[in-house]
Structures are given as C-alpha cells and as structure tokens.
C-alpha cells in the first residue's frame, strides 16, 4: 500500500463503521433511512459538532479544553439577556459574545503557556468560572422572542428541494473552517508539530507561544458558536446549557481518530465521529424500548475500543521515538 493511502486507513475504517451503523439502523428501524433523519442528525448535533471541531484543533496540539460546555452555556444566557433585557440587536449581541469568548480563550492559553500549567487544570478553572458567571446572570432559562431567531429556527436554506435549518448549515460551515485551519493552514500544521514533539517543533522554528494561545482562542470561539447554535436551536438562553458536553466533544474527537496525546488526527474524522455519535443516539431513540442512557454506554464502549486501537498506534510511534 502507498504510504499516503496507509495514512488515510484509520479514517476510512471510521467511515466504514459509520456506514455500517447507519445501514444497520436503517435495516432495523422503518423510516430511519430518510433524508429528514439525516438532516436532523446534523441539526441535532450541531452544538456538539461545533465544540468537537474546535476541540480537535486543541487536541492536535496535545492540549485539552474542559471549559467549552460552560462557555457555550454562558454565551447562550448572555445573548438571551442582551436581546431580551437590554434590547441589543441579535447580531450585535452575537458578535459581542463571540469576541468575549475569543478573549477568554486567549487568556486561558496565555496562562497555560506562560505559567506552564497543565491545560487540564486551567480550563477546569475556566469551566467553574464560566458556569458560575452564567448562573450569576440568570439561574433560569430565558426565552427569546425575536423575529430573527424565529426565522433561523426554521429552515434557513433550501437545496434540492430539501430545507436545511440554520444550525445544520452552521455545523457544516464550522467543520469546513476547522478543516481549513487544521489541514490547509500553517497554524494547523504547527499545532500538529507541537503535539507531536514540542522540543522538535521549537527547534524547527515553530512559534510555540502564539500558536498555543491562538488555538485556545479559536477553540473558545467554536465553543461560543456552539452556544449560539444551541440558542438558535432551542430559541432560548439557558445557563445550564452544555453541561457535560465537553466530554462528549472529547469522545467524538477520539472516535474520529485523533490521538489524544496530540500530533496526529483529522477534522474530517471528527465529523465522522460526530455522525457516529449522532447515529447511535437516533437509533436508540428510534428503537424506543432502550433507555436513552444506553447511548452513553455504547459511546463509552466505542471510546474504549478506539483508545485501545490508538494505544497500539502510539506504541508503534513510541518505539520509533525511543530508538531515535
């Protein structure tokens, strides 16, 4: 096999798994095999997908961000409060909230880089901080009655006779953006280099500090976008939105074949991972007999399987590294 093809093998395997799952569900449940289900798969998982897209980039660099779920919750309630209480135009509110996210992310990145703290710990503090601030603003969910939100909640685009909701389009656009950053830009390649071997990356002239700070800023931006998508999707701002979602996002990234230690991965894989996650959930929903919690167990099992597969991959890389 050509090396280029071999590199794509894990991705192909994940895609085959998705196809098998989807076909299996379609065979088991009547009506699963429809365009509506497929489109819902996108819109139901848009929030999670946007988070996972950003998380992929952070994990490329060997880092992790636990604060994304809380940040999405904060964005959700901030936008609702701005629009409903202060009558700020929705677009301005969104821009304001997203800018705040990027700033918060850059702040966390700076602490991680300059004080050499584990990303895990700093973003854990971020989780507490953002969630607490969200509840500070309002402990209850706030419904948004604004024509723009109502319009966005419906089908925003029509393609080939099918309506696509705004959030589904946002998800695809977000994934494409993350893919461009991760695979077509120096930024993404630098992330992978840092995650692969930070010392080498430094010697090879990769700007470590700026890259690390930027990736947390970009990831927080994605988390903010996820919060925005959730707000549009539910038509309300909710301070407890996104609780625990950071873990689902990490799970999706890992199922997508990105190495949690950094240095190897793909945004496209994350997208496939997201669809696997979503398919399992819809299939269990379609079944109706199983507790929806089975989805979490299955995801846990998948996570275990993928991590063990990765483990053997790492052992291989490790062996080479040690000989070096």
């Amino acid at each position, binding site marked *: 096999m050509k090396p*280029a093809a071999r590199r794509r093998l894990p991705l192909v395997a994940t895609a085959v798994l998705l196809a098998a799952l989807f076909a299996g569900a379609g065979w088991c449940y009547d009506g699963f095999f429809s365009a509506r289900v497929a489109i819902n798969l996108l819109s139901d998982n848009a929030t999670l997908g946007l988070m996972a897209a950003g998380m992929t980039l952070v994990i490329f660099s060997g880092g992790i961000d636990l604060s994304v779920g809380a940040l999405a919750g904060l964005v959700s309630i901030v936008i609702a409060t701005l629009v409903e209480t202060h009558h700020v135009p929705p677009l301005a509110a969104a821009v304001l909230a997203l800018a705040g996210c990027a700033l918060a992310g850059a702040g966390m990145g700076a602490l991680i880089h300059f004080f050499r703290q584990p990303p895990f710990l700093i973003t854990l503090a971020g989780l507490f901080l953002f969630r607490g601030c969200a509840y500070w603003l309002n402990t209850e969910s706030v419904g948004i009655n604004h024509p723009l939100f109502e319009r966005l909640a419906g089908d925003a685009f029509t393609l080939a006779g099918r309506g696509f909701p705004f959030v589904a389009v946002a998800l695809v656009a977000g994934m494409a953006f993350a893919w461009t950053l991760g695979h077509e830009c120096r930024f993404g390649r630098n992330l992978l280099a840092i995650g*692969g071997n930070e010392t*080498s990356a430094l*010697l*090879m002239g*990769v700007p470590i500090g700026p890259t690390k700070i930027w990736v947390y800023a970009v990831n927080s931006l994605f988390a903010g976008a996820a919060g925005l998508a959730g707000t549009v999707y539910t038509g309300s701002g909710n301070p407890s939105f996104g609780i625990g979602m950071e873990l689902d996002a990490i799970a999706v990234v890992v199922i997508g074949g990105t190495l949690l230690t950094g240095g190897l991965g793909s945004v496209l894989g994350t997208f496939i991972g997201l669809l696997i996650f979503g398919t399992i959930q819809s299939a269990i929903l379609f079944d109706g007999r199983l507790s929806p919690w089975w989805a979490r167990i299955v995801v846990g099992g998948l996570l275990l399987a993928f991590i063990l597969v990765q483990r053997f991959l790492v052992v291989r*890389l490790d062996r*080479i590294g040690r000989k070096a």
Partner: protein
Amino acid sequence: MPVVPLLTVRRLTKRFPGVVALDEVDFTAQAGEIHALLGENGAGKSTLIKLLTGVYPADAGEVRLGGELIRPASPREAELAGISTVYQEVNLVPSLSVAENLSLGRQPGRLGFVNWRGVRAHARAALARLDLECDPEAELGSLSLATQQLVAIARAVDRRARLLILDEPTASLDEQEVAVLFRTMRRLRSEGIGIIFVTHFLDQVDAVCDRLTVLRNGKLVAEHAVRGLSRIELVSTMLGRTPEQFSAVPATAADLAGRPPVFEARGLSRRGAVHPLDLSIAAGEVVGLAGLLGSGRTETARLVFGLDRRDGGEIRVRGAAVPLDSPRAAIALGFAFCSEDRKHEGILPNLSVRENLIVALQARRGAWQRLTRAEQEALCDHYVEALRIKAPDRELPISTLSGGNQQKVLLARWLATRPELIILDEPTRGIDIGAKAEIEHLIGKLRAEGVAVLFISSEIEEVVRNASEVVVLRERRRVAHFQGAEVNSANLINAMAGGHVPHD
C-alpha cells in the same frame, strides 16, 4: 592570499558551577571538509556544540563564521546564521509526513495557507539532493531510524547551511546505514559544506574524516590531519597517555579461578540488543564490561538484572537455574543495579535523601514491613558517613544534591540491600574526581567483602584499575575475554577498536 576558514573559534570558554566545561578552546573548520570532534565523556564536545548552536551563551571568546563574528542566542538563530545541527535523537515530528517535516516552520504559501504542491516539490528537491529514495508522503515515524536521520540532515542543509554539525548520528545505526550516511556526508562535502562530526567510533574517523580535533577535560589537546595518524597515537592523545604508560596496572585476585560463580549466563541474548553471549561472575570478583558506546554493554547489564526480557539463554544463580524476568526477581536473588542514567532511572527527584536511600530495601521488605523511622535514620547516617555523602539535611529532596553525591546515595540505596551481585553501569560518569576516587575505593571494599561486581565504564583505565577479569563487547557481541595479567589497556583497546572499517 589565505582563504578565510569557514569557522574559527578563539579562546572559547564556558564555566558551570564547580567546573570549567570549556577552557579557552581554539577550533577551526574549513569549508568542504569533514572534521571529527573527539574526546571521552566530559571532554567538552557537547559544550562546544551547544555554544556553537546557541543553546548556551559563552562566557568568553569568539566565534566567527566565514570571518563574521556571530553570537547565536538560540538554535534557531544559529540556523539562520548558517550552522545547522543534527542530533543523535532525531529532532523531527514522527507523526507528520516526510515532506511536512522538511518544510515545517517555513512552509511555502501565502496568507497563512500552506501550498501543498510547493511543500511536495520542495521535499522532492531536498531528498533528491541527497539521493534519498523515500516517499515524501510517508509518515516519518514509519521509516527506519537511519532514513529519519538522513531526512533530518536533508532538512538541516536545506536552506543556507554552511556548517553542518552531526552529533553522534551513527550511535544507533547499523553498518549499512552508516555507509549510506557517509555517502551523504561526502556528497555534502563536495558541495562545499563544512561538517563537524562527533563520534565515538574511531574507524569511522578513518573512513570519512579529513581532519580531527581532540578535546580533553575542556581543553584543546590536538588538531591533526587524519591521514598518517595511527590508531594507537589517536587513542593515546584522547586518553592523554602513551600505550606503555597505562598497561602496567597489575591485575589482582588471579587465584579466584575455581570459585563457584554467583552468576552464570549462557547464550544470553535479546534481539536488536545483544547477540548470544556467556558471562560468569564469582563472589569477590570484579568483572569489567568494556566496549565503546553502543557496543551492548548497558544492554547486557539490563538483561542480567531482568530489566529487559531476554529472548534466549539460560541464567544460573549460585548454581540453580532461575527465570529472572523482572527487577523484582533479580532483587529477590540479591542483585543490585546502579543505572548509568541517574536522572531517568536512578533518583526519585522530589523525595528526600532518606527516602531515596531506603527505597530499594523497603521494596524488598514489602509495604507492610516498614523500616521504622529510627532504622531509616540509622541507615542514612551510616552511609552518609561511610560514603562521605555531602548532604546538608537528609530530609531535603535528593535533587538538591550535586551529581556525585546523588550517585553515592544511589550506591548506598543498593548497598543497604546487602547485595551479592552489584551491577555498576558507568558509576563515575559526570561526577568530580574526588567522588570518582571514593567510588573506586568502594569497589575495592566490596570485592574484599565478597560481593560479585559487574563493572561498566567508558574509561579504559578505570576498567583496568578495578577489574580482575574483563569481557570486551563490540557491535553487540562478546569479542574478547581477558584475565589476570592480560587485563591491560593495550589489549582492551585492541579488542575494542578491532572492528573493520565500513567502506562503501
């Protein structure tokens, strides 16, 4: 008109607390020349390289590249000035493709986008320049180490490198791989690049180098053309003695023959580490394991201690066959192993001197049979006194001690278990002269007490002084065995250096 040399180093000096690592060293390298930099461990080679590549700032002296004064503050700056380095550890990213590794940090493209076509074209050109046949799309980590090394060189000479420093690039390569590397080096030489080549393998100096510089104890000792210099002369320069001077240390304990061995191995082997070899050590005997770096000394010691699993061979301890497949099993048999890698395999940096000292004994007793605090303190005081460990407070973390004192604590850790066989792998590396002498004194005492000792050192004199029997390894094989009066440096050097020269 004389040509300006590519690199001139004048009176370069670097001091570290307690030592002068580099003492007013002069060094010259020409363009289109391969220049060997030689010296024993601690001679100052790596300090010189780190000063040239901007890892450390120099305390005094100057460096000129092509006549221009340079003061690189980082490896990056040195690279921009034209000095590129390839280390023994490949400093690339194994999870990325070859092409990406060649262009990382300087990818072609605009506005932050990577021009992948440009990256591939550039990679093909860089690989072609070295006649390197590998797929630019392949994941670097999937390639052999030698190819990775060559990719690193391709990257290093890619831009405006005028001087290439190769720091022990051959340490983990096999013969064929070395030949490929040499071909590449000659090719670069013909393109007018100056190469500084650090190696421990003297036949490689003969094979590929034009000139050589020898450092010893941080000082410049000699600069020679390689042609017309005999091996014995070279080794003498490196060690600072003539062969006659250091063949006279008398071997002791010749009457040990006939004593039953504590440890006996037949056909001990591990793929990629050691070819099958026999080894036997009797009580009260010091067996030296000699060989150049990479000859399989440490690997053999690790097999003896069960730290790595052996593929084949039989081990008998006091006459009985034992499985010996883990350090715990070895310790239960009364073995002890002082690793050469003090930092990674020796000290527990955040734990106190006391805890570091008792940990092996405690491990042997198990978690529930705790040594009382009084017993621990008595042990500490005993060894601090006996080994003259300079520790201001036994409750301070061991990382606050000097290297020599850390080493003594590690020795004490093993002595406290009252071992019957102790393996000392480079116990004197990186410690000061006084501590070295004390450790040698200790080896003598152990021998007198009837402990079997397996002693490994890069310093031939040390081996000769301490061992009554020496096994010489070369290229991961046992090639010679000396006993009694045969144990002298001339014999050892001959056996160690006797490999044939890899020509291509």
